[in-house]
């Protein structure tokens, strides 16, 4: 399709009003943030909303702050503003860097982090990193608000776990601490990534030992997936951890529901996980990756 079917567009003054609208129109209504996914889906008639609720007009919903040791990123913050934000760069450089690699300038200027997470397109970057950084999102509705870990936000490919009427209002990400190491890398030949790998580790002694770790993989599977078993083998001395990276890579691949598609076979994707786990480990330690 080249044209969109007709709908009404609403400009709520507040989140409350937006969620009331969502509740009122039910399945006929959708949130419009940057529109970079939404309008595509509507052009393909994959989504057919009769009411769009423009979230960007709500003042303050694109603010970026630090509170209680966490970054609070308003849902309508564009990728570009997160990438450029001095606050983000300072407090969670891995996030700023990941954002600077999303899509291209024009999409980053328009598309929002909130929209990216809500849409749950399998080939996206932020959720994979947020999983390991311990990100949560805030869902608000007319009846209340709740915090949802990013892990529970995504229900599957193109599916999220919001309840009817809920609006994502902000993304909270713990600030990086000196004892933290984190990194995100992707493998990309297509417009969107083929593989994304996020790693976070805690090291009390500047990288000699690791007391805990979180690792997640995305793009090779229908939704970003934590390698919970892999995390268990990623603790110990650096030497031990490094030796166990292949084992951990296999555990990550086992945890993810790898898919055979035009971007590669399951075997190739497993191979990529091996390569990129080693690279992202070095990258998190701020060492040359290869």
């Amino acid at each position, binding site marked *: 399709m080249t044209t969109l079917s007709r709908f009404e567009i609403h400009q709520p003054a507040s989140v409350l009003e937006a969620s009331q609208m969502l509740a009122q129109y039910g399945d006929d209504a959708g949130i419009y943030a940057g529109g970079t996914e939404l309008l595509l889906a509507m052009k393909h008639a994959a989504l057919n909303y009769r009411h769009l609720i423009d979230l960007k007009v709500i003042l303050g919903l694109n603010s970026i702050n630090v509170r209680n040791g966490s970054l609070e990123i308003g849902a309508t913050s564009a990728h570009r503003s997160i990438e450029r934000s001095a606050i983000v760069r300072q407090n969670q450089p891995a996030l700023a860097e990941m954002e600077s690699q999303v899509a291209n*300038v*024009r999409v980053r200027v*328009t598309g929002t982090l909130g929209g990216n997470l809500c849409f749950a397109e399998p080939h996206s970057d932020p959720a994979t990193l947020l999983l390991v950084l311990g990100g949560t999102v805030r869902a608000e509705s007319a009846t209340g608000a709740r915090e949802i870990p990013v892990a529970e936000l995504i229900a599957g490919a193109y599916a999220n776990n919001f309840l009817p009427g809920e609006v994502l209002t902000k993304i909270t990400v713990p600030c990086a601490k000196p004892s933290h190491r984190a990194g995100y890398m992707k493998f990309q030949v297509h417009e969107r990534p083929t593989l994304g790998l996020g790693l976070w580790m805690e090291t009390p002694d500047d990288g000699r030992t690791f007391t805990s770790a979180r690792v997640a993989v995305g793009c090779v599977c229908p939704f970003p997936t934590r390698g919970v078993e892999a995390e268990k083998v990623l603790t110990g001395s650096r030497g031990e951890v490094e030796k166990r990276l292949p084992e951990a890579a296999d555990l990550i691949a086992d945890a993810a529901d790898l898919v055979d598609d035009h971007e590669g076979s399951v075997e190739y994707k497993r191979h990529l996980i091996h390569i990129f786990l080693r690279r992202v480990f070095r990258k998190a330690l701020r060492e040359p990756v290869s």
Partner: protein
Amino acid sequence: MIRTYTLTVNGYDRAVSIAPGEILADVLRDKLNLTGTKKGCNLGDCGACTVLVDGEPMNSCLLLASQMEGKQITTIEGVAHNGKLAPIQKAFVEEGAVQCGYCTPGMILSSVALLEKNPRPTVQEIKDGLAGNLCRCTGYTGIIRAVQRCENYRDDGTCAKKEVVAENSRFNSITLSMPRVDAADKVTGRAQYTADIARSNMIHGKILGSPIAHGRIKRIDVSKAKALPGVLAVITGADVPDTKYGVSPARYDEYVLAKDKVLHEGDNVAAVAAVDERTAEKALGLIEVEYEELPPVLDAMEAIAEGAPQLHERYKRNINTVVEQTFGDLEKGFADSDHIREETFIGNNTQQQPLEPHAAMAYWEYDGTLVLYTSTQAPHYVQYMLAHVLHIPLGKIRVIRPAVGGGFGCKAATSPLDLCSAILSRITGRPVRMTFTREQMMHYGRGRHKQHMKMKLGVDRDGKIKAFQSEIYLDGGAYTSFGVATAYYAGSMMPTLYHIPNYQYHGYRVMTNKPACGAFRGHGVPQPRFAFELLFNMIAEDLGIDPIEIRLRNSMTPNTLTVNDLDIKSCELTATLLAAREKSGWKEKFGKLPKGRGIGIGSGGFVSGAGYAIYRGQVQLSHEKGREPFVKKSIFPHANAIVKVNEDGMAVIVMIGAAEIGQGGETVMVQVAAEELGIPPSRIRTRCEDSDISPIDLGAYSSRVTLMGGNAVKHAATMVVEKMKPYAAAILGCSEGEVKLLRDARMVVAGDETRSVPWEEVARKYFNDRGPLVGTGCYKPPDGLGGDFKGGTVGTSPAYSFGSSVCEVSVDLETGKVKVERFTDFHDCGTPINPQMVHGQVEGSMVMGASETVMEDVQFDKMGHILNPNLHGYLMMTIKDAPEVFSGIVDSYEPEGPFGAKEIGEGSTCTVLAAVAHAIANATGVWIKELPITPERIMNAIHAKQSISEVVSTPGDD
């Protein structure tokens, strides 16, 4: 609800009524008439629709117009001020960053946004800033150069640009890197492409494509669609002529709309005309079609098997073209060989993907003349085909070719849009405009045939070729289109580069339930050339001969008749090899690079125009008379030009039907005319777009425009000068024979240049006396081209181009990802009329060819549905992948060409695939013989080799 919104566009408030759901790109184009904003994909993938919103670049195809109130929108029309180009626009014009111009508005706006924040960006910063703005023509090289040098074009007097002068001092306007004549229009958004043109009372047409790849149409019900308010016409196979059409006259096998069977996904089933695009699309959804599904056959090698599903009754075992040619004594050739190697290679189905989707707009005059605006490479063939299908004389058809946003072969045939818009317009009595979506373009296809190539090459111990045997199955898709010629080209061009004394070619073009393949840049040749060159490199390795050296030992020499009777005249292949070897530092690099880095060589070349026209016979309605018996000469001139001098002598108009499709054909025509007339190119304009004005030229295919069109223009200009001479003699008081034309718009007495008269004065005198000063010229290829065997005509040409490319890559040996780092290319294109445009063609070819080698492929599922029918699934190189390109031109002069010129656009593609593949082999230690060479294929090959060497290194260990 439609409401009036105030949009601030280019600094002015504009009140527009907008319905929610209207996209900003459409509102700018259709309601504010700002058609400089282009739509290449409509899905956020190409960046052609880039506008600035509060200074930030955004894809306007992904913005709702209704949400733009209060924001400052800048379109390309807002970049120049008071008719003065902005520095970045000047830079694009002067640095050769513009070809077809379709990506240009988006590129410029992205550049503006980048330079605003960062006036001196590094190459990497430019790549980040322009990432996702796709360009299919320039290879990004010129664009990066323009952004980097933008500073030089500021008006503060720091401009470091030097005046362009002819590189060869024998000439004034030839070998002159002047900016393209259409560049300023293209950088300002003024250039009009077909979809930008609206006529009053115009309506919109759409085509319904088949959802299945193979089936019989059992029932079509259009009543609901017809009943939809706003729908003016709905047509199906029953409403279109019974005449089949196509390209090769022996194989017309397409109906305008399917009459009985559909043969591939997207095959044309019905068409609708309605008051607007939305209504037309809605109507498509209301057409009910019942299909009896038939099993599809998707692989050429399966399609030829007994019992495979048949597409067309007339092509038994689905074989649509058979070529079986043997030259010399093959057996003896192999018997005389010291080393023989046989390998099988597989190509890929790639598509041209010009940035501008196909478009057409048709209306009928009251006198019965059909007027068709169309984005085409070959206006005359469209005219011919419309006459054929609609049964009206050619003279009653006027074809107008507006600016064309690239073609590369997919716009060389008459499209269903051309035919349907004409038919819908005849029914409704209103102008009808139609465009393809990117998905429809991919269903229409006409891309490169995937070729299955078995090749056997025999050489003596010095590496001299003794015999070559090639067996190729070409996967043609569902219709013939250009395919007969493709099957011949895949064989006939092989003996043009090297002396091959004994040669056999067997080619079989096979029908499958996929979009028809056609002529794609290098028509049929790039894949067999890739295979041959790679095989040649393997043999060189087997024999321990340097791959450039083995080429030099076999290199074609001038004035040679090849074993298959092609007449090579000028040929500097050897010079291109030597120059590429020298410039690339080959000797220091080949075999000496660290692991993961590689260097490779490929040579190639192409015809400068096909020796024969596509249809046999005169210019007439094809039904009037059957096909004429073949004679070895052209029946009518392939290129025809009129050169008309303005009444005041200050301007000259060149008229020729040659299609400017981005390659720069019109600029070449201007330069040729200027040189021959002895006046500066700035005094010359072209009128090439309208068949009512410009005489027939067969079109922009087979790289024919420079040589053939150039010759026609040159002859027409000569006639003008000849007509002027008696008047100059009278003014100068000398004899006609003593009049000499200088190149600075003066005519003088030979031997005494102080006695001179301005050119325009002579022209005025002529007009005062005789009326219009007009010259005409034409060009026919030489008679007698080609051998006396079946298919002996395909591959014939007045002249051949040659070239060699050295490619350097780095390969991530852990992931298989290839970075194409650098090309060093030298070409023999005869005299370069415009060196900058020659380099532009080479730069574009290198990137397109590299992209085809490592990433491009149309992919199908088991039922024949395209899995990647868009520009995010179908990968092409972006500016981030763009390699450095050095393009050099070797000295050469082609006697048959205008001022010694021949082609560059297609030959430059033919070198690339093998050069890249060889470099990858050199970097990885594995030969990959299947395209595209994806990271996964590389990893698989590396792993396979490792496991073999493990097995080999541990004998007896089980």
